[in-house]
């Protein structure tokens, strides 16, 4: 298990924010701004029409969007972002069937020391191909990824595509020798989280978050299974997998943790079907200051929740 325990290190993602539809606009629905107060204040005043700014673009195009470099782009908060040192963002729309529930936006700073990967893979001609991705300083890994494809069932993108369920991989570089492994190892990437992103078009899409030791995406990951076919008609969710730099393995085959709707932060996602991005909230596990929880729907129903903590 290679989840960094040092909580004083920089993290790869600096901001996570939620935008929710209200009428014909997306309005602010909370976020973790990692102490970047000015950018937070600007954001809280903002809203987006369909097609407007990054969240509006993800809504209009009904797919995840990666934006590297804000200058001269459609990004609306360029000035505030520049002041906060933010240079790249990924917007992930959360759909339940054809209905947009929210847009999760994560923002990163282009810093030579920050390594990680946020990738969007989608199916083209029977293979998972890279749509786009943000890699920070992992330039070689970025190049390798752009020239890699995954058949169904193979590697993290192909595995998530085939299993239709989130997958959390350990030791990307050493234990798990997928095609990009050498490069991943050199970039220090260890933990890989793959999520099936449902799109109204029906096109298969996989989001991967690859976390490096030095600048981790998170120090704790949780995968919750909320499918009625797993938890029954009473609802709730069971912890299917998870690792934590402090507590070690979080999974328990015989006696998995369980939450019900509105019970804690995961319960809030279960009850509302909306993502959560919170800092300093009650209910965070010991030693963690912030968390993001992203719901994944299948057939219009909430199926999985993926949460990461920093």
């Amino acid at each position: 298990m290679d989840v960094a325990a040092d909580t004083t290190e920089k993290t790869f993602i600096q901001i996570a924010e939620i935008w929710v539809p209200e009428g014909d606009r997306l309005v602010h629905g909370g976020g973790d701004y990692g102490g970047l107060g000015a950018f937070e204040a600007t954001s809280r005043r903002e809203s987006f029409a369909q097609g407007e700014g990054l969240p509006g673009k993800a809504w209009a195009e009904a797919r995840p969007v990666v934006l590297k470099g804000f200058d001269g782009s459609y990004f609306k908060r360029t000035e505030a972002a520049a002041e906060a040192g933010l240079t790249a963002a990924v917007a992930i729309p959360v759909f339940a069937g054809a209905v947009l529930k929210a847009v999760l936006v994560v923002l990163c700073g282009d810093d030579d020391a920050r390594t990680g990967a946020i990738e969007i893979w989608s199916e083209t001609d029977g293979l998972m191909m890279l749509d786009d991705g943000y890699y920070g300083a992992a330039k070689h890994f970025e190049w390798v990824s752009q020239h890699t494809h995954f058949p169904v069932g193979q590697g993290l993108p192909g595995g998530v595509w085939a299993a239709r369920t989130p997958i959390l991989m350990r030791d990307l570089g050493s234990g798990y020798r997928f095609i990009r492994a050498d490069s991943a190892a050199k970039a220090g990437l260890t933990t890989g989280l793959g999520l099936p992103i449902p799109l109204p078009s029906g096109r298969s899409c996989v989001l991967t978050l690859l976390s490096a030791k030095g600048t981790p995406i998170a120090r704790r990951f949780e995968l919750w299974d909320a499918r009625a076919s797993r938890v029954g008609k009473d609802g709730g969710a069971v912890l299917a997998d998870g690792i934590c730099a402090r507590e070690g393995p979080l999974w328990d085959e015989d006696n998995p943790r369980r939450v019900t709707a509105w019970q804690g932060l995961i319960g809030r996602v279960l009850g509302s079907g909306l993502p959560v991005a919170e800092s300093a909230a009650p209910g965070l596990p010991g030693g963690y200051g912030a968390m993001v929880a992203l719901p994944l729907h299948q057939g219009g129903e909430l199926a999985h929740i993926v949460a990461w903590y920093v």
Partner: protein
Amino acid sequence: MQKLVVIGAGMASGRVLEHLFEADPDAYEVTLFNAEPRGNYNRIMLSPVLSGEKSYGEIVTHDDTWYGRNDVTCRFGEKVVAVDRARKVVIGENGEVPYDKLVFGTGSSAFIIPCPGHDLPGVVAFRDLEDTSAMTEASARPGAKAVVIGGGLLGLEAAAALRLRGMEVTVLHLMGHLMERQLDEAAGYLLRKDLERRGITVMTQASTKEIRGQGRVEQVVLEDGTVLEADIVVMAVGIRPQVQLAKEAGLAVGRAIQVDAQMRTSDPDVFAVGECVEFEGHLFGLVAPLYDQAKVLAKTLLDEEETFAVKELSTKLKVTGCDLFSAGDFAEGDSREDIVFRDPARGVYKRLVLEDDRLVGAVMYGDTADGNWFFSLIKDGTDVSGMRDTLIFGPAYQGGASADPLSAVAALPDDAEICGCNGVCKGTIVAAIEGGAGDLPSLRAKTKASASCGTCTGLVEQLLAVTLGDGYAAPAAQPVCGCCDLTHEEVRRLIRAKELKSQPAVWQELGWKTVNGCHVCRPAVNFYLLADWPLEYRDDPQSRFVNERNHANIQKDGTYSVMPRMWGGMTDANELRAIADAAEKYGAAVKVTGGQRIDLLGIRKEDLPAIWSDLNDAGMVSGHAYSKGLRTVKTCVGSDWCRFGTQDSTGLGIRLEKRLWGSWTPHKVKLGVSGCPRNCAEATCKDIGIVCVDSGYQIGVGGAAGMDVKEVERLAEAATEAEAIDLVVAFVQLYRENAKYLDRPYRWIAKVGLDWVKAQVLDPEVRAGLIARFDISQSVYQHDPWADHVQTRRAAYAPLADLSLEAAE
């Protein structure tokens, strides 16, 4: 403090120590031997370690700190050489250790198929961390290939993990469906589909003959001659208890180390636990009973009362995204009844098996939420008669609805072809409905869907219902039988649209309400499958009526009739002599039939192979007088002999019969060829009747002379004999591909219209396609069943002890 020595640091013995230290940490001074150079880890979690979804560190159960805290003397990486029970010492490679009590936890080893090449480097089992590491190494090379022998729990977990690692994986399984000990055929079908969706190749009924390689595994050769390339071969066909040490120590050993209900061996100071144990004839491979044993043994070691008992087991597969659950006994039986629930759209199958108002087995795939509840009902033997009607919906049932009959159509992809005649896909039809075509006539006008043969009408109506919801009221259609909600035509269309190539696939994907269909739907589905997928589907004799199964017509006294084929009604002295000999030898009555054949009546079942063999020896084959297939081609003597004959009707009849015989059709097919309009062969009341005229051949179809009497309708006129044969073959194939099972051609033509039939058969391109598909089918089915049965199934005709029972069959 007493001395306890434990041989083997596995999951069972580890659990014994946990219970022991928890109850009385000072009771024993413990020495733990382990041949592996490490302590206890959660062996059943090795597959996620192999896939990369867990790290080894996460599955360690007892680390050095734990052993240190409990003062366990660890002798890891050291094999035990012998046990001297007389001196009460365990002899390790590095020296002896005395004991007061001794526990065998030696576990099991993988069973390796002793085929040539099984000992080549690269052939591994899947038992421990070393095996896991070997597989990880093998997967490091891009494009590497793995062959997994064994489609049980362990083999499939290994296969899925290796696939995730990037290997090309083939699973070989000896039996007909995967995990046959835990799953029935329907669940096995879904599991196979799930694995194939992951890019894994699954081969069932695959028997390994040999493993080949120069110094290292390179190929796996199957009994049928198939050769598979392999960089690694994983053997996961079963386990064998490790009992050699116990045997050498003189303990009672059967299939494994025999213990009583307190886990005591034949020596009162020696105990055994885990997979190396045999209790009341049972062996153990799953973890739940091992933990039960551990609890019992810990109490026994502390002189407390506890008894081990064998319980029902449940199974889950550790492949991410693969939800299956199996518990209890799900074999079919006369006193048992099934409750089946299928939801094709969600890929859900649930089956409960009840006996005497109690749940005895449960198999579920795709929805396992209620698995544990069902499992507890099985274990407790709860009387479920009061909740029988709602049992399948689980504990939280609150007036739940049955599966939506529209779900199969709703689940079809947009590019699934609904109307085969006009090549109209689901997406086109749905778009037209959304564009305002709200009923069948307007849809037909707009898309041409169901505008030709009409067999897809039901499906098009379902699409209307799916798209328009309550706004569309479909007319009621007659389903195939009580097992499903679909008509014959819908089943046929969906078998093609969804590419269903096996009976389990049909049952699941079309939402059958019974486990394996019934006597009504099975013969129909069997025919539809063999007609549509001649190369992929194998005919199932168990889905045939008794006459077709026995290749002879059963008579009212229980004897059979035997009728050899006489091509075009022609015979000769040799054939007649053989028939006469056979009639005499087997005491047959002889009857000349209306179809110009000779029928031998009154043959006993046990004589069938012999009489067939005799007739085969004279060059004759089965006349298929019993089949839903080509029966006879009746001819007149034609231009060779008759003053009025215009063409060689006998020759055409012979050539047609030789082309068409052996093919299965929805119902029987009779042909007639008359040499002139005087029609001596009575061709105009046959399913297909040809009347020769000076200008060529008049081909009529859809005649009948049975319960209904009907004259043929003109399909076409052909100038040449070759053209006439082409038209007949194309018509037969069109009938095979489109008619409802047990509809004679005249009934089918009445439904689809002769115009449509003509349009198909007369279009040169369509005709060529029909003929090509017929020939492919004939390459599989045109063979003499008599010769086959004489060779391979003679025993099935042997007399039963009670002959009256046989007669009643």
